[in-house]
């Protein structure tokens, strides 16, 4: 399941009104994909400008692309491991603009100019260390719950994972999730709940 699907089912199971929207189908062909999860916000499947409380950025350029949704009170969790789109190499060999993937530090700086609540980490490395880069979703969900923005604790989410996945499969997900929780231990969230 994607991070958005996990969050949707977790909060819906707790009786919250969850509206989540996805533009999907292109991820397998390398296209960009985003999803929104709105909890007790109303029926709109799209988030308005500057109104994201949290951005889970699984890739640096994609995180920067979500700037229209970010304001000074948004918390951004950005994975610093890049996935370079194929067009960059194409532009490079043809000596055109766009032949360079931006420096992650530049992207970080641009985001920090808008919001001080930014955690930029190589979350993919944590996923790899827990056994598979495919658990990146779980690592970042761990960071989300670990940050303390949500009223629900990491332990409650882990319970939900265990109830949905059989134990022999859930352990790598749990390890990944907990590594995400640990990674943000020292981070101070925006005051109070969104």
């Amino acid at each position, binding site marked *: 399941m994607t991070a958005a*699907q996990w969050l*949707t*089912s977790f909060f*819906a199971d707790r009786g919250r*009104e*969850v*509206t*989540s*929207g*996805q*533009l*999907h*189908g*292109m991820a*397998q*062909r*390398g*296209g*960009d994909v985003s999803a929104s999860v709105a909890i007790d*916000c*109303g*029926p*709109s*499947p*799209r*988030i*308005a*400008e*500057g109104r994201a409380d949290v951005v889970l950025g699984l890739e640096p*350029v*994609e995180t*920067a*692309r979500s*700037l229209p949704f970010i*304001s*000074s009170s948004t918390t951004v969790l950005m994975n610093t491991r890049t996935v*370079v*789109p*194929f*067009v*960059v*190499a*194409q*532009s*490079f*060999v*043809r000596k055109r*603009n*766009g032949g360079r993937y*931006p*420096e992650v530090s*530049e*992207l970080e*700086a*641009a*985001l920090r*100019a*808008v919001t001080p609540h930014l955690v930029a980490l190589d979350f993919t490395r944590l996923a790899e260390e827990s056994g598979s*880069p495919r658990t990146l979703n779980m690592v970042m969900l761990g960071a989300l719950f670990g940050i303390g923005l949500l009223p629900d604790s990491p332990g409650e989410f882990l319970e939900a994972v265990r109830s949905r996945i*059989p134990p022999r499969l859930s352990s790598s997900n749990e390890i990944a999730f907990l590594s995400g929780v640990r990674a943000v231990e020292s981070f101070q969230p925006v005051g109070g709940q969104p």
Partner: protein
Amino acid sequence: MNARGVPHPVLEDAPGTSASFLGNLAIVRGALEAGVQFVSGYPGTPASEIGDTFARIASDADVLFEYSVNEKVAVEIAFGAALTGARSLCSMKHLGLNYAGDPIATMPYVGVEGGMVIVSAGDPSLVTSPNEQDQRHLTRFLFYPIFDPATPEDARKMTRAAFELSEATRLPVILRPTTRVCHTSGRVELGPLPRTRNPIRFEKAPERYVPLPENARRMRRELTERYSLAERWLGRSEFFPRTGRGKRGVIASGVATAYVQQVVSELHVEREISLLQIGAYPIPETALADFLLSVDSVLVVEELTPFVEDWVSLQAFRSGRQIPIYGKETGHFPLEFEYGPDLVEDALRRYLGLASRPRAAVRVPELPQLPPRPPVLCAGCPHRTSFYLARKVFGKKTVYCNDIGCYTLGYGEPLDSADVLLCMGSSISQASGIARTTGSRTVAYIGDSTFFHSGLPALVNAVQAGDPITVLILNNYVTAMTGFQPSPTGTKRPVIEDTVRGLGVQEIYSVDPFDETAALEALRKARGGDGVNVVVFNSPCVVNEARLGIGAARAPYVIDEALCNACSLCVRELGCPAIFVEDGKYFIDPDLCDGCDLCARLCSRDAILPMPDHERRT
């Protein structure tokens, strides 16, 4: 049941509870609650999950299901089932309805016995389509009742109700969700699942089912009656809810309704507004008349064309109700593309005379240029190899007509294998048109599923005319782009070659694109041939094989830094997403590389080799 024996959530028999469902799943649920008995369809974003879900649950739910070869056949089969009394559903994207245009036009005349619902999912903002179109016009054009859901819960209730309406009027009914309903998850109430279903029988009555002119004229008169009956049925229904008592009227339809509700709540203007949701067409005159009398003005909020806006304006004019009506025609909303909460808020503020939406004082950051991330053929995709080899033989000047599928991604640098594109199956006919007037051999690319969907008539035509075209059929044994639905080639019998031969093409080559010698030889012969010739490239979709856990595991390749001279040919010619350039050095990401060998064969320095000691991947 899934692998763990857990039934699919859409089958949950727990009336009165609620669940979070994707809009498309809510449609499946609504159909199940109506006792649907037969389902057909063709995949297409944003509708694909409807067919895919029915494919998974069909035997558990005791529903007859098929992925049809195209939407015309899907609709006709569903209609046949409906004539026997079965409740039938047919699903497709908006373009699919166009393809089924001929049966769609006549079905309302003949009428159904069991209720029939056609789901035709729209794509405002053309996320995955070459056009956007407003299906709602079909209500006036062809006498279809049409439901227009705003949320997944709407989609469920409307699908269920559509079957009742269909049987009450004997009209096939359209459900028209859009991407932001189909691919939105929201709370859905679970209704009861029925214990009984319609009995099946075909009762002979040719005068009832054969629209020869003498019957069709009678049917036409009856159609007017049945359509009026639909309007009265809708007038008694729950699908035109009205909230608020304010004097500033707002009329909304589709997902725009959700944006209006959210914005009204956030602006705290509930008391100033009366909101009427239009959930279906034809819009009952009574629902609209009462509303127009109770407000001083109307803002219409709808995506695509000003369909409701014009309907409301006309009814207001005819009834002598002279109030201002705002919407697209007055510049409050754009004529193209989807809406969102910001657009709706701006229009509502303007309508209510409120101050402009405050924009957060954001320091516009020094943002480096962000590279776009368009979709691209997967690493290892056989189409990349086919395009590359064909271009080597046919060259830059040949016109390449492309079609709809993963291979559409042959468009643009560096493969440059799509000069024209129109719709499903059009590559062959377009190639005929261009070859006919220029006299030059023209190439058409078409996939296996698309070929059987709508390529056959064009090929018959080309053979009859003797057009100098080369049809390159890219067979990856599956309907990949929409989610790996089955294709007629799935059995692995040479059904394409047999069909092409049967249609009279004499020069046919059948090759593996990864057998470069054989592939190049076939392409050269085709280029030098007369009239219509066909090269079938047979090689399975690598992603489909990976997800099924079949197919050969191949070692990823690595670029030897010592041998590489940075000539850039591998990047320049192939556009493979596994090859990167960093700090002027070329390298391959072993997690992305599929080991197809194409770049290695192209490399003039033999600098690209399979990684040694590679762990076998499953």
